[in-house]
């Protein structure tokens, strides 16, 4: 055998060794959950509770926005994608192209909450008024019966599912005002509103209640929302109103897997959707899944 082939054999051997090692390393891999910032805290808590009983199933939970989760599932870099909005047709088409069978699980119900600084005297808004604020059609609170001060809009970045949900369901697919401050997460929106008396923002209901007091976080005011002028306005803290749809901007929060979940992923999702997991959902300020969504979850788990 000449030197050339010895070199080739050595290189091939090294390559095989690396591949073999990598396969072994891949055996005990961590379950990845990526996506919605609305869900990230809740799923982190669920994962911690699950891992306390299942130490051999490590779970890593990352935010980054619903679009990040969708991309990760499409690229195969996560087992579970969290989204606070429905999957877009374009994303479902991409999944179809890549042979990914998007299987959805409703994890919780959220009443998307419109919040202002506690010094704002307004107590309620109509859907139309919320849209007018975020489209930039109303630039002064006086325009909707509030004080004479310029509206300061707080929202999320476009990779956020909440950004997309509000745009689709409240702004009716019209663009946000260019004056909106695009914040990284729910906590940043709350920080902004606490320090800005002219502010308005939107966050998941699980972010506005102070766990120690069980009341809305000090410094914030939660606005009741009505479907239209003259109709009754409801709070996202009103569970019945959220379930019945009387609170007009409620939504399911989703998790998606590629096909029916198996192994550790299945065990984790079963835990989340089970009695214990749904109690944690409620404890963290969201609402548990009931009715047809719960039935669909069970079907998708099979």
């Amino acid at each position, binding site marked *: 055998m000449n030197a*050339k082939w010895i*070199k*080739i054999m050595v*290189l*091939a051997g*090294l*390559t095989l060794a*690396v*591949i073999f090692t*990598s*396969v072994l*390393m*891949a055996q005990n*891999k961590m379950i*990845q959950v990526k996506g919605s910032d609305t869900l990230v805290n809740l799923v982190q808590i669920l994962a911690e509770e699950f891992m306390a009983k299942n130490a051999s199933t490590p779970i890593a939970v990352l935010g980054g926005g619903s679009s990040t989760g969708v991309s990760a599932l499409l*690229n*195969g*870099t996560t087992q579970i994608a969290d989204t606070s909005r429905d999957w877009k*047709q*374009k994303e*479902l*088409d991409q*999944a*179809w*192209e*890549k*042979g*990914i*069978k998007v299987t959805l699980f409703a994890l919780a119900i959220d009443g998307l909450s419109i919040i202002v600084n506690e010094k704002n005297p307004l107590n309620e808004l109509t859907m139309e008024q919320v849209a007018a604020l975020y489209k930039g059609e109303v630039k002064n609170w006086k325009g909707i019966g509030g004080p004479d001060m310029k509206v*300061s*809009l707080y929202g999320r*970045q*476009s990779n956020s599912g909440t950004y997309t949900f509000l*745009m689709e369901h409240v702004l009716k*697919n019209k*663009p946000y005002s*260019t*004056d*909106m*401050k*695009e914040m990284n997460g729910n906590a940043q929106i709350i920080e902004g509103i606490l320090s800005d008396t002219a502010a308005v923002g939107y966050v998941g209901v699980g972010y506005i209640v102070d766990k120690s007091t069980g009341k809305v976080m000090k410094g914030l005011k939660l606005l009741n929302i009505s479907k239209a002028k003259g109709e009754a306005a409801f709070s996202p803290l009103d569970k019945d109103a959220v379930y019945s749809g009387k609170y007009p901007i409620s939504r399911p929060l989703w998790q998606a897997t*590629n096909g029916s979940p198996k192994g550790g992923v299945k065990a984790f999702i079963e835990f989340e959707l089970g009695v214990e997991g749904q109690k944690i959902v409620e404890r963290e300020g969201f609402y548990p899944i009931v009715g047809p969504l719960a039935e669909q979850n069970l079907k998708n788990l099979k």
Partner: protein
Amino acid sequence: MKNHQISKAGLAILCLLAVSSFGWGQAAVVPPPQTFTTTVYFDYSAFATTNGYLTSNPLSNKFHFRRAYFTYENKISDYLKFRFRYDADNTVNITSVDFAGKSTKKDDKLRPFIKHLFLEWSQDWLQSRFNIGMIETLAFKPSEDRWGLRSVAKTLVDGYKDITGTEIKATSADIGVSWKGALAKQLRFALGVHNGSAYSHAETDKFKKISGYLQLVPVAGLSIIGYGDYEKQNDNQKAVTTKIDVFFDMISKINISFEWFNYNNEMYMNTDNSHYQVGGFSVFGTYKIDPDKFTVFARYDHYQPNSRLSVKDQDLIILGLDWFAWGATGRLQPNVWIYSYKDAARKQDVVFNLTFFLSF
């Protein structure tokens, strides 16, 4: 104007600018999401043969710079995006200009050039995306995306000239417009009109390249793409590329792809007076052992290098591993290239590359 007058005028302009910028700062407009990214890749190449067609010089093992991209992207709104990308190539023997000496010279320095400079306008209607400017062309974008290892090797049509030394007027970027969309989840399309002279040449004729593809996804995980482009070379002669891609993604973590193309240019004639026509096919596959850590890949290309010069066919096999050693920021990609030739006078070449891929 005296010096102190110039100074006063300069001061006034500076004050004006300062006031203006203060005013802008007061507005509640938040800058749109903007990103700056850099991607660099280079090889350490070791030549396992010393008597092959390419490796008989003999060649010394070496670090070999391949590419550096600097990309600025600005998401202006939900429907509008702008991209500016510099590319620094392995520009051996590029000519530099000595302005002082009013002369030019050749050297091995790496110099950036503009690769992309386009606006992308998205619309919900047919999931449309319109690109305008120095755009990505359509010829091999789907296969490049599927292969995903440009740092290791370009795909068949894109890398054709690099491998065979023969120009087939295929470029990854050009000035023009393109429209991509979807008629249904089973049927997508793309259309483009561009100069045809590529990003590195000036347009010198009135003829433009028209390109397009139809992508059929009959079942989840199976794509079939038919591509064609057409450009008149002069008043009487034309060049046509036809291409078929098949992507198979029906098995978890495994992707198998097939690419075939044919290029016919009536402006060039073979020695037997037939039209200049070349082609080839490529089969490649990846297996994601762990999508965040390791992917193994393999590829087989068959080229018809140049029917005009009667150079015989050649094959290329590439095998390797993509190791995300530092996550997405730093990847190590050991790979072996094995060239073989139908021409018995040409001996096989074997080259080992350790490719360093850095992105930040």
